[in-house]
């Protein structure tokens, strides 16, 4: 095993910079976008990006309604980041809590949690998404909660399994014998030890949420117009994959790059957090 290297590897620095950039874009979205997301110009539809025959005023070209792709991309980053972070946090917190509850109490609490896990896993997400859209319309907050429901069962199962295993390990029993309350044991001891797997799980959540979003857009159930998001741009842009690929490629590239960055940072964080490595 390699000795732990001091400092931050250059690749991770780039990744951090990218993530910081995305967050900055998300925060400043309304200020830096050149056009409104619904500002359409029906005479300049499907303009290519700047180095492919396009104009300076539309760096990434325009879409099928003549709207500026750059502006829509910027606002989409904000919306998708909001959704992904919110959903990941909800899924991780909710899932891990449920997993811990199941591991701690066993008995019928565990049975109920496991039943909810199975329910979540068996219910095609299509139906859940459809119900939110039908009963609550296109509200962003509810959409985030809906996305948060996706994947919590994975967090719950993993944290339950690992918490049970950790409970049986020496340190947990020792700390318990010293009189520590369960909450302290879980938060202070169990959580850090299973943190690495949870971090990986969380870093997977970001792209999964965005992908889920595009899958839902494909089925017509995702973020609805006039709101825009990365998944929404990819979903509606697929029809123009050959005619005007920039509509789909711009958001797709952002998704891939951001996920790569999040994964790299996540791996690095995991390495740092894991006291046993090195």
């Amino acid at each position, binding site marked *: 095993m390699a000795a732990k290297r001091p400092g931050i590897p250059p690749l991770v620095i780039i990744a951090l910079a990218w993530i910081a950039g995305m967050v900055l874009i998300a925060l400043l979205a309304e200020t830096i976008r050149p056009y409104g997301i619904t500002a359409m110009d029906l005479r300049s539809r499907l303009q290519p990006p700047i180095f492919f025959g396009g104009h300076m005023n539309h760096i990434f070209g325009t879409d099928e309604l003549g709207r500026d792709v750059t502006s829509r991309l910027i606002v989409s980053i904000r919306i998708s980041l909001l959704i992904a972070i919110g959903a990941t946090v909800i899924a991780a917190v909710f899932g891990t809590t449920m997993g811990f509850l199941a591991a701690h109490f066993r008995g019928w609490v565990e049975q109920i949690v496991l039943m909810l896990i199975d329910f979540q896993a068996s219910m095609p997400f299509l139906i859940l998404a459809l119900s939110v859209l039908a009963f609550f319309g296109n509200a962003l907050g509810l959409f985030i909660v809906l996305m948060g429901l996706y994947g919590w069962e994975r967090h719950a199962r993993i944290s339950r399994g690992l918490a049970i295993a950790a409970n049986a390990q020496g340190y947990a029993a020792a700390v318990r014998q010293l009189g520590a309350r369960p909450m302290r044991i879980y938060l202070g001891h169990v959580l850090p030890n299973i943190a690495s797997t949870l971090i990986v799980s969380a870093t997977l959540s970001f792209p999964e949420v965005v992908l889920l979003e595009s899958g839902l857009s494909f089925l017509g159930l995702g973020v609805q117009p006039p709101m825009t998001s990365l998944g929404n741009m990819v979903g509606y842009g697929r029809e123009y994959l*050959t005619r005007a690929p920039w509509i789909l490629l711009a958001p797709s590239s952002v998704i891939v790059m951001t996920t790569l960055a999040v994964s790299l940072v996540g791996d690095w964080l995991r390495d740092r957090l894991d006291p046993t490595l090195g």
Partner: protein
Amino acid sequence: MKLTRRTLLATTLLPRVAIAQADQRPSVTVAVQKIANTGVLEPLREQSSNVSERWVASILETPIARNQQGKLERVPGIASAWRRISPTTVELSLRPDVRFHNGDVLTAEDVAFSYGAHMFAANLPADIPQIAKRHFPALERVEIVDARTVRIVNKTPDLTLEGRLSAGGREIVSQRSWMERGDWAANAKSPCGTGPYRLNRFKPDSELVLDSHDMYWGGRPKLKSVRFVEVPEVASRIAGLRAGEFDFACDIPPDQIGEIERVPGLKVQGGLVTNHRIVVFDKNHPVLANPKIRLAMAHAVDCQAIVDSLWAGRARVPAGLQFDFYGDMLVKGWTVPAYDPALARALLREANYQGGEIIYRARNNYYTAETATAQILVEFWRAVGLNIRLEVKENWPQVLDKAGPRGVRDWSNSAVFDDPVSSLVNQHGPNGAQQTNGEWSNAEMNTLSVELESGTDPARRQEVFARMLQICEREDPAYIVLHQNAVFTGHKASLPWTQPPSFFMDFHGAWGA
């Protein structure tokens, strides 16, 4: 009904297929977005939507046909001639040589059955007679004069009977085939008609394969078989066409025409169809109750810009809710409200519009370019100061849902036959969906609808129609006409096929020079 004697006649006359000659005719594969909405092949259930219109006339025929190689004017079909006996009665003379797919000869009994038990029997699924009643609102009886002559008798005078007899839902089916099979669901999936192609197999939501009906009265069909495959994704249909797997790809959006045509060996044909895209109002909405506001919304929309941008100029803004083939019934000089944002703003001021929110419900590309059109409309309306909120809904019940404020919604209007009764009255009259949904109503319009349906003086009917347009599009707007729809089909350039002015994929008359 002497079934046994007819059966005997039919089987003895059935030609033994000469295997000596190899069948050199081509077969084609057609990629469509959807084969059948309801999962069956029965027009009374499927109701001649743009989906089923692709193949119905290949299998089942109406007594009076429409010229798919012309302007859809009425021409002889399996009825070689028709005569108007009285304001309530039309007499049809059937051709002597028409064979069903099971070999039976068409007789007046089949016509009587098709408009009788096939539509109104007690043991049919409950919705069928209701739909049939919409097709023939006042049918009294079908009289068999002799084996080749039949009279359609209406209870009330009806100048549109000929039109009805040429429209979807009024196809003739084989009585023997229906009675023998017995079960409606089984029959609905195995239609036995007189069309140039017969059913080989049908896998709902997957494929529909038709074989040539060699004894077709109109001459031996030019193709050996036609296979419709359901390919829901546009990109997949185009990819399959480019890869050579499909001979035809239907439902091509206008933006993709260039993509197909720049591939050597492929071309796109397209044209207008008898279908208009509209948005309809709910005048119970507190803001929309004032007709000036609705008229303002009509003046705020630049329909030509929508046609030029989303439809590459290949659709068209019609003269109000009218269709060219109305012929003499056309109200000449009538137009949609002109694009005039200043006038729209003035109307809003007159109506004292205070900024109340209007909900606009649309679906996610149920109609071609629906989502794009909806977003464009929202911008036009916002530009004149209206507060519009777009809500994209998943299905029709959610669009029509009375719970929650209804404002404007998307729709389309087809002319089933060449008279305003089939479009304006059908959808916006007293029994039309817009009124039965509780969205709009107008007392004068309703009285005029009744007069239009049963009137006999053509000049008076045209006057009535003009007045109805005035009401529905200016005085108490029920809808805004956006544009006439066009349909585009991509296909291998080498295939000798011409697109008819409808959704019908005609593989008989339209095939060959």
